[in-house]
C-alpha cells in the first residue's frame, strides 16, 4: 500500500511516497544524498547513524520512515547555520575530537540532544549520555572535552 510521508529535513519540507518499510538511514543516504549520516553496524549498536528527530537523537538505521511523518529531522549537514559552524562542530574541531571522523556525525548529534536536555552536564552526565556511541579511534576523551566547551559556549551565546 502506498503511503506519502511528509516531514521537514534540515528545515526544508519534504515528502516521499513509500510502499514498504524503509529505514531512515538509507532514505537519507540514497534518496536525499545526505551521506554525512553513516552506516556502522546496522543494528543500533554504534550510533554512527544518529540523527535528530524532533531534536531527539535517534538511530536512523533502526528508525522506520513511517514514524517520521509530520516530524522534523536534522542531519549533520543541517547543523551549521548560514555557513557558521554550530558551537559543537566548532568545539570538535578545536579539541581535535576526531581521527578518522567516521563516528563524528553521530557523536555531534547525540551530544546536541544531550545538551538540549541538560545544558550544564557534568563529566559523568556526558559519559552516560554518550556511552552507546562508539569510536574505534579512541577519541572519547577529546569528545568529552569538546562537549564541555560547547556547553559553555552555548550558554554564553
Amino acid at each position, binding site marked *: 500500500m502506498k503511503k506519502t510521508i511528509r516531514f521537514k529535513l534540515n528545515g526544508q519540507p519534504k515528502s516521499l511516497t513509500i510502499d514498504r518499510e524503509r529505514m531512515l538511514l538509507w532514505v537519507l543516504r540514497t534518496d536525499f544524498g545526505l551521506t554525512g549520516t553513516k552506516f556502522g553496524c546496522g543494528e543500533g549498536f554504534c550510533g554512527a547513524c544518529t540523527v535528530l528527530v524532533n531534536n531527539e537523537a535517534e538511530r536512523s538505521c533502526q528508525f522506520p520512515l513511517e514514524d517520521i511523518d509530520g516530524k522534523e529531522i536534522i542531519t549533520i549537514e543541517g547543523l551549521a547555520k548560514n555557513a557558521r559552524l554550530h558551537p559543537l562542530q566548532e568545539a570538535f574541531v578545536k579539541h581535535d575530537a576526531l581521527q578518522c571522523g567516521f563516528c563524528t556525525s553521530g557523536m555531534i548529534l547525540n551530544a546536541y540532544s544531550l545538551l538540549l536536555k541538560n545544558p550544564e552536564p557534568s563529566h559523568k552526565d556526558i*559519559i552516560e549520555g554518550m556511552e552507546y556511541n562508539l569510536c574505534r579511534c579512541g577519541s572519547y576523551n577529546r569528545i568529552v572535552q569538546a562537549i564541555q566547551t560547547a556547553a559553555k559556549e552555548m550558554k554564553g551565546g
Partner: protein
Amino acid sequence: MKKEDYMDIDFYDDRTGLPLSRREFLKLMGGGIVILFSVGDPLLLEAQRRRGQSLPDDFNAFLRIGENGRVTCFTGKIEMGQGVITSLAQMLADELEVHLDFVDMVMGDTDLCPYDMGTFGSMTTRFFGPPLRAAAAEAREVLIELAAEYLQVSTSQLKAEAGVIYHKSQRQKKVTYAQLTKGKKIVRKLKGKAVLEKPSDFTIVGTPVLRRDAVAKVTGEAKFAGDIREPGMLYARILRPPAHGARMISVDTSGAKKIRGTQVIENDDLIAVLNEDPELAEEALGQIKVRFEKLDSQVDDKTIFDHLLKVAPEGDIVSQGGDLAKGEEISKSVVEKTYLDGYVAHAPIETHTALAKIEGDKATIWASTQGPFGLQRGAASVLGFPAKKVRVITPFVGGGFGGKNSNQQGEEAAILAKLSGKPVQVTWTRAEEFFYDTFRPAAVVKIKGGVNGSGRITLWDYGVYFAGERGAQHFYNIPNHRTMAFSAGWRGAPGSHPFATGPWRAPANNTNTFARESHIDILAAKAGIDPLEFRLKNLKDERMIRVLQAAAKKFGWKPAKAPSGRGYGIAAGIDAGTYVAHIAEVKVNKKTGHVQVKRVVCAQDMGLSINPEGAKIQIEGCITMGLGYALSEDIHFKGGEIFDMNFDTYEIPKFSWLPRIETVLIDDREAAPQGGGEPPIICMGGVIANAIYDATGARLLQLPMTPARVKAAM
C-alpha cells in the same frame, strides 16, 4: 629491518604500478616546478633486493609547485585517522616556507600518485618524512635560483618566507613563488643533496596544529568510499557461507529475482544480488535458498592454543647470548609460564566499502583501503585488465588499524561491476566485517626466566608462537638469553588458523609486550623488588631508562613491592623505533572481576615529533583502543564459524571505560622522527595485567582479562 616486517607484504615491481609513462605523466602535470624523489623505504629496497633487481633509479613520490604558487604533494599514502594528511603537509610547508593553507595533499590515487606499498607499520612519517622534506628543500633551492635570476642578485642574498622570496637586506626586492613558476616547466630529480632546514629553524613542524580535515568531518562533507555516488549505481549484497571452509551444495536464486529491480549475479562461487536500493538488495539476499556443507573442524576459542602448539613449525632464533644452562644454574629462582592471547578484530567503524565503475576498458574503484596499489593489482587480476587500466581512488578511510590492507571488497565490487555493466557499491555489513576480517592471530608465548639473589635477571628463554616476532626481542640486560619465534609471521602457515589473520595495529608487539612485561613483573615479585626499580636495575638501554623515569615522575611513583594493594602497574616496550613506558592504576571489583582502569600515564620517545598534538592524539587513541584487547575483545568461534556478528557480543571500549590519560613526549629535536600511530598501544595488556596483580595478587596469563577470568584468577 626484521624479516617478518616485509614477509607479509605482497610486493610487485613498483614500475608496473605506475599507470603512465614518465613522459605522459609529466605532460599531465602541467607547468610549474616538479620535484621527483624516491622514498628510501628499507622495506621496498629489501623487496627489490630479494627479487634480484637492482635498485630503482626512478622516483616514487613527488611534489609540485603549480603556476599559481600552490604546493601539491602526491603520495600513495592514505589518511585513515592517523593524521598524516596534516603532518606531511606540515613538513612540506615548513621546508618550503609557505603557509600550511597553500599545501594540497593528493593521496592514494593510483592514477595521480606514484607507487606506494601501503599505509601501515607506522612508516609514513618515518620513511616518507625525510625524503619529502629533502624534496621540499630542493624545490626551495630551485625557487631561490629562479628568484636570483629574476631579481638579478646572488642566491646567498635571498631568503624565502611565506611563499615569497625576499632580498635579505632590501625587502622591497621580492618575488612570489607564483610569479616564479608562471609559464615555467622545471623538473628535478632529487639526489638528496639539498640542505635541510635545521630542526631549530622549524616554524611549523614541532608545533601543535589542528587537523586539516576536521571541518569537512564535522559537517558531514568529508567523503568516504560509501559516500561516492555514480549515476545508475547499484548496491550489492553477496551470499556468504555460514563458516569459513564451508562448501555450497545447492542454491536457488529464483526468490531473489522476484524482488523489484533486482539483478542476480551467479558467477561460480560468487552469488550476489544488486539493486539500486540497498534495502531491497538485502531483502533479495534473504530470498536466496542455499545449502552449505561445513567443514568438520572442531577447534574453538578454547582449544585453539593446544592446536597452535601442535601445528607450530620449527622455530627461528631471533636473538641469543650467553648460556641458558649456566643461567639456570646461577638463578636463585626460575619461573616458567605460558601466556595466551585470543583472536582480535580490527573493527573500524567504517566497514570495508568500495564502489567500482567500468567504462570501456578502464575501471575506477573508490575504496576504503590502506593499500590502493595492492587493490589496483588485485582488481586488475580479477577483471583481466592490465594494472594501468585500473584506477583506485582512496577517499577518507574510516579507520583501518591494519585491517584494510586486505582489499577483498574492492575486488568484489570490480567483478560485480564488470558482470552487471553498472557501477556497483559493496559495503560489508558488520557481520561480514567480523567474518572476513584478517584477525590479529591467536598466539602463545612460553617464557622461562630466572633471577639471582641480588635481583639481576640471569636467565631468559623466550618462545613466541604465531604472534610474529615484532617486539619479541627483550631489551633488558640479561647475560643468558634466547628468543625464538615459531611461525612465519602473523599470517601463520596453512592449517594453523581457521580463518584469515593479518597485521593488527602494532602487529605481534601487543602479544609479545604483554608476555614479556608480565614475566618481568613476576621476576620482580620473586626478587622482592619494586617493579620500577627492578626494571631500572636490569636495564642498560639509556632511552628505555629515560622513558621509564619520565613516566614514573609524571605518575608520582612510590616504590613498593607488588602486590601492594594499590593497583599500580608498569610496562614498557619498543615499537617502530619508538620507546614507550606506561604506568596504570586500576580498580578491581572483587565480586564481579570487573576491572576499571582509572589512570594511565604514557611516556614516549619518538625522536623528533613532527606534530606533537597529533602524537598526543595517537597516544590517547592507542590507550583507549588498547583497553579493548586487554579487557574484552576476543573472537568467539568454532571451526570456521564466527559467532561474533556485531558490537553486542564483541565489545569495544566505550566512553565509561576511559581512564584519565596523561602523556609525556620526550622530544628529541635532533633525532629522526619515528612511528607514533602504533607504539603506545603495545603496553596495554602488560600494564593492566601488572596493575591487576598489584591490586589483588592475581596473575592473569591470558588476554583479554575478562571479568570471568579475573574472578577465576583471584
